[in-house]
């Protein structure tokens, strides 16, 4: 047999042209529709930067202030747009600085392509200046990676990189290109990759699995849907809505699934997980059929697996076969792309409603409102809460903003209380929990969706992990709105210390700088709010600003995020205080 066909490409008859490897890299990016990339120059990638200079009318390079910022910006770009984000760095420390963003993209299934320069191929393995084995280092945190040592490999490898990053379950790809390959001349032509023989990105959805799933759902008295980012990545928001509405199923979301269905939808019962809503967590252990769609049963969602939904039949709609039965044993697995599988499910479902079951969610919501939400959104005590800042942002953006968060208490509050009318509006580091994600991700998001209001919300801890990206904002004039909810603490860790370590606040209190002065140092308009009566006007001013704007809100120092499922506890044991 002929086994030579390892990859398939679009049949594009292109005349070849003799160019350098570095010019080829830029042309490949342009062919893939890249309009902006994020990066930082250095020795081993300089030939490519020289080409970027020549092609500056066609492709916009954003100089971040740290390579980690470049990777997160590429992620933000990808998450809001569904397109592939691109980051570039030099060899050695430039490349290793990308790793946190790459690991984040891997665990949150974000399509990014990272291009790193490498020392010349004759120096590989010689401990040359700024040489590091980035292919080895990045292997466990990339969907695919590859080292290029010859210019002639560049078109095929970059075509594969984009195809792999965005197809199937998306993820990060790293391409490492030696400096001699960047200088070398070769005959260039480009065609996009459309298939790789060893790689089956989307498993086929079987009709039997759909029929079995529909039969279970049609019989269910207390069905519960929990959807995740798979719905957003599969562009299946409409299909999800149709399924939910036809079968009348209360539906909850994981943190990365947020915004796929508007917050205000009557069947949207909130977030599951450690700091999710009371009702969907509690009732996970009451439902008779649990329908998981494009989610992976993360431990922050399930709590103790031995007591998770044991009473329920579990149906898992999933694109990645490795996720099926990984954490939760499923009764029916429906493999495939969520858009295809949900569209296939819809005609098999009976029109239905479950008013009594839905009432249980409402009753538990009322309890959560009394015990938690009232305190967060309608505080009567003096100190500002994080929740009321979100409430004000909701009111003034009408729920149409994209919220980019960092990691910690503010993140949980933002995900719990932000109103989402538009899909792809919750950009946050879910799986990896990367502090410092928010600010650079917001830069990428705003550039990919300039017409949207993009609000970066961080805590005082995470903000300072990538605070230098204020420089990128100043230089590019990208009008992101930056909110820091400052409690002078690493709040989430402090909360755990309070609850589980007898208030021994080891290294969680922060002596913070004057954030307003720092923002102003970067020529960014800035304001600080310390009193409730100042909040509405300050948020209004921020939203109205045509330019970037920084708003610090000094909030209650020792407030806690509830509900909370203590680590390793059952979802039934969710605490309200």
């Amino acid at each position, binding site marked *: *047999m*002929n*086994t*030579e066909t390892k990859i398939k490409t679009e049949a594009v008859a292109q005349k070849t042209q003799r160019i350098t490897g570095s010019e080829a890299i830029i042309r490949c990016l342009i062919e893939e529709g890249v309009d902006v990339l994020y990066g930082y120059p250095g020795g081993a990638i300089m030939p490519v930067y020289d080409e970027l200079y020549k092609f500056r009318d066609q492709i916009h390079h954003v100089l971040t202030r740290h390579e980690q910022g470049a990777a997160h910006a590429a992620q933000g770009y990808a998450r809001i747009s569904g397109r592939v984000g691109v980051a570039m760095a030099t060899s050695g420390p430039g490349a290793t600085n990308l790793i946190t963003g790459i690991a984040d993209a891997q665990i949150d299934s974000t399509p990014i392509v990272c291009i790193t320069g490498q020392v010349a191929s004759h120096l590989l393995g010689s401990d040359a200046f700024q040489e590091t084995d980035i292919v*080895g280092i990045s292997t466990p945190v990339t969907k695919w990676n590859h080292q290029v040592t010859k210019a002639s490999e560049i078109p095929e490898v970059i075509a594969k990189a984009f195809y792999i990053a965005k197809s199937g379950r998306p993820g990060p790809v790293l391409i490492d290109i030696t400096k001699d390959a960047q200088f070398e001349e070769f005959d260039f032509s480009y065609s996009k990759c459309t298939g790789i*023989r060893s790689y089956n990105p989307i498993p086929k959805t079987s009709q039997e699995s759909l029929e079995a799933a529909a039969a279970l759902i049609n019989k269910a008295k207390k069905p519960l849907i929990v959807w995740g980012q798979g719905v957003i990545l599969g562009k299946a928001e409409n299909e999800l809505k149709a399924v939910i509405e036809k079968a009348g199923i209360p539906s909850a979301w994981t943190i990365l699934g947020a915004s796929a269905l508007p917050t205000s939808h009557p069947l949207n019962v909130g977030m599951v997980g450690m700091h999710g809503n009371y009702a969907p967590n509690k009732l996970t252990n009451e439902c008779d059929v649990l329908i998981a769609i494009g989610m992976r049963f993360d431990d922050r969602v399930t709590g103790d697996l031995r007591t998770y939904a044991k009473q329920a039949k579990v149906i898992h709609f999933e694109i990645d076969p*490795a996720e099926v*039965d*990984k954490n939760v044993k499923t009764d029916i697995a429906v493999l495939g792309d969520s858009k295809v599988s949900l569209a296939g499910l819809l005609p098999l479902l009976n029109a239905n409603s479950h008013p009594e079951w839905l009432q249980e969610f409402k009753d538990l919501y009322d309890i959560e409102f009394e015990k938690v939400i009232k305190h967060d959104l309608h505080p009567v005590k003096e100190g500002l809460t994080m929740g009321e800042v979100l409430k004000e942002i909701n009111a003034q953006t009408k729920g149409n903003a994209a919220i980019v968060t960092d990691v910690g208490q503010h993140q949980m509050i933002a995900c719990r209380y932000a109103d989402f009318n538009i899909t792809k509006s919750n950009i946050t580091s879910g799986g990896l929990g990367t502090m410092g994600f928010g600010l650079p991700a917001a830069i990428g998001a705003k550039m990919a969706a300039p017409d949207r209001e993009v609000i970066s919300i961080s805590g005082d801890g995470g903000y300072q992990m990538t605070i230098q990206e204020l420089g990128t904002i100043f230089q590019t004039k990208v009008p992101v709105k930056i909110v820091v909810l400052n409690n002078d603490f690493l709040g989430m860790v402090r909360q755990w210390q309070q609850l589980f370590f007898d208030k021994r606040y080891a290294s969680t209190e922060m002596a913070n700088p004057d954030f307003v002065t720092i923002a102003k140092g970067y020529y960014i308009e800035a304001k600080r709010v310390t009193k409730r009566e100042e909040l509405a006007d300050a948020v209004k001013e921020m939203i109205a600003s045509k330019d970037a704007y920084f708003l610090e809100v000094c909030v209650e120092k020792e407030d806690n995020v509830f509900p909370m499922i203590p680590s390793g506890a059952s979802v039934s044991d969710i605490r309200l205080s």
Partner: protein
Amino acid sequence: MNEDIKTFTISIYTENNIGLLNRISAIFQRRHINIESLTTSQSEIEGVNRFVIVVNITEDQAKKVVKQIEKQVETIRAYYHTDEQTIFTESCMFKIKSALLFEEPQIQNIIKESNTTIVTVNKEFFVLEKSGRRHEIEALRRDLNAFGIMQFVRSGRIAVTKDEMKITEMLLAFNNQ
């Protein structure tokens, strides 16, 4: 799910690419699974490599590991099998002082009875090679150890399955798409 730890032979068909060994071994390392043996070679299909990895894990772990391996872009297919589902063998070599052949006539009997092949003999040493199951090789090593072994080396397991693998069909299907 069966929680007993058993020996599984994991067979992986892959593209022949630099770095893939690293990617596959990382899947085991990350789950704290010790690899008992690992062999890679050309497979029956031109340009397709085959890994044979032996691990002692539960069947649940084996299933999950195989799925993670299959998820890798350059893995064509991966399978796991029990010892009963495979035909397998290992191979070993011994380097022994030539003088012993004459001083210890028993060695000649051991060689004959164990179906061991003499690869080479010279004035200083001779080299034996044997293929077989682990216990046969171990028995031979114990027997020869009594006389002194200069060098001993054993390969990883190689195995073929009793069932068909259907890789060729899969690759043909890709070509005909």
